[in-house]
């Protein structure tokens, strides 16, 4: 799709609005985490990812892994928007008998790997990237990581591995909203300077505003940033982005909006219930 035909703003707003409705209906959590990645997902699924909803197993497809598997509601919306499964499925997210569990799950059309415990996505992504190199395939692997993912040693094991094996077909996108499960990264395990850490592990790292669609698109179109090096995008984001009273507040990692809060949130997004 040529870029001027993609309305990322509208796509990301649909993701946010639907996520709010799903989390409200399910009385589930992780809302702030999902809103945080809505803009990145809009660009990935709007333009970047070379996938075919009619053939989810197409061998040449790009692979997308959500290592922060708890933010899955946003990914399910993006997948439904792209036609991987019926939009109706979103209505039962998280509920008894649903197709869609509360952490990203392999087997849902369009999902490449299950995740829920942090620190698993990048190693699996490295395996997929390595397989592409072995088979001389051109697909890329995109992995979204959270702050918490960057606490896990396994993430850094994978960072060493990707550099060692010159995996320039993998991209780590860190959703750097600086709030982890029970506090601010500054107060728990400070990750700064994060881009420098990735750089020192042999990755080519760039920092962007993770809510600026143009910056996200330009970064993703520029991959690999250097040949024979893995690429990292440190996306500065705001947890709960798009709903003023949810932004930058650890509480919205856990809370579910009540009816009034849902109405107010949708109003802010300019959409109706």
């Amino acid at each position, binding site marked *: 799709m040529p870029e001027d035909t993609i309305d990322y703003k509208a796509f990301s707003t649909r993701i946010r609005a639907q996520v709010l409705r799903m989390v409200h209906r399910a009385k589930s959590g992780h809302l702030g985490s999902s809103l945080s990645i809505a803009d990145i997902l809009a660009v990935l699924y709007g333009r970047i990812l070379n996938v075919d909803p009619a053939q989810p197993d197409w061998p040449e497809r790009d692979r997308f892994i959500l290592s922060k598997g708890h933010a899955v509601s946003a990914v399910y919306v993006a997948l439904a928007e792209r036609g991987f499964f019926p939009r109706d499925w979103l209505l039962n997210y998280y509920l008894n008998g649903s197709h869609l569990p509360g952490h990203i799950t*392999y087997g849902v059309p369009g999902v490449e790997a299950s995740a829920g*415990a942090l620190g*698993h996505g990048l*190693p699996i992504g*490295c395996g*997929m990237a390595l397989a592409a190199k*072995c088979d001389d395939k051109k697909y890329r692997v995109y992995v979204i990581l959270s702050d918490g993912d960057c606490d896990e040693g*396994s993430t850094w094991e994978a960072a060493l591995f990707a550099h060692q094996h010159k995996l320039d077909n993998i991209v780590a996108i860190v959703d750097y909203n600086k709030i982890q499960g029970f506090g601010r990264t500054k107060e728990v395990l400070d990750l700064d300077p994060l881009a420098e850490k990735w750089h020192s592990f042999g990755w080519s790292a760039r920092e962007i505003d993770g809510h600026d669609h143009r910056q996200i698109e330009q970064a993703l179109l520029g991959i690999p940033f250097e040949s024979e090096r893995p690429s990292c995008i440190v996306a500065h984001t705001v947890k709960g982005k798009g709903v003023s009273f949810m932004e930058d507040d650890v509480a919205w990692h856990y809370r579910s909006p009540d009816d009034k809060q849902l109405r107010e949130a949708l109003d802010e997004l300019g959409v109706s219930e």
Partner: protein
Amino acid sequence: MRKAFVQALMDMAGDDERIHLFAGDLGFSIFEPFMEKFSSRYINMGVAEQNMIGVATGMALSGKIVFVYSIANFPTFRCLEQIRNDVCYHNVNVNIVMGGGGLSYGSLGVTHHATEDMALMRALPNMTVIAPGDPLEAEQATPACASWPGPCYLRLGKTTEPGVHESLPSFSIGRAIMLRDGKDATLISTGCMLYSNVQAAEILAGRGISARVLSMPTVKPLDRDAVLAAAGETGVIVTVEEHSIIGGLGSAVAEVLAEASGIDCKFRRMGVKDTFTHNVGNQEYLLKAHGLSVDDIVNTVIDLKKEGR
């Protein structure tokens, strides 16, 4: 046993380009032939077991058959969550190969004693657990793991185990192998205790007790039929394993016997005691300290026979 594994892997890798071998920075004097012949399909993953399992999963999700190797508890405990969530949940063809099962690394100490691994692996959905009884079983188990669609845990011993089988047994995942028939008692082992059971059966024969010897290389799925037949036909079962008495072969057999109806069978588990050993010594020394010598096996059977059927 490890060399039998590597030879079998090389035999397969020549015909099947999907086969890859990942090592956790271990395998000196074992993997060199594979590295030379299949350099593009061998990776030393470094001392990073969690990543090793994750990468193997990503490869397997992309159509590869991956064998990962390390020793003792490194390829299981260190990366248990990766094995559960990545390998088993995705149900992929990743085969975790461990060298140094049980007390193989005797004098190196408790960190290197792999004595609870089968309990952990057995509890994981989709996981198949195999501990070959001798090098010939290891040789046949290796291609069986590769052609088994889901994950396998292959628990090997050292490099110097005696061959027990005279010829290649008919190895099949989930099937016991009878080495010697008997009518008075059954000795069931998994892994390298097989040789001890064969020796014990020989001694028992000299004392007028006819002991059946079953090698049970597959602890999961367990050969229930062989267990129930042994219970019904010999009336005495002793399980012998170089593993904690909790959660391994003995537990698996106990579960079958406890749920069977109408069977009158005396039963004992022999295994590593539920304790960390503070003794220093080689494998043979430590096995004796845990009551796992050939004489201990003989005496256990005799005691059970004395209790009557």
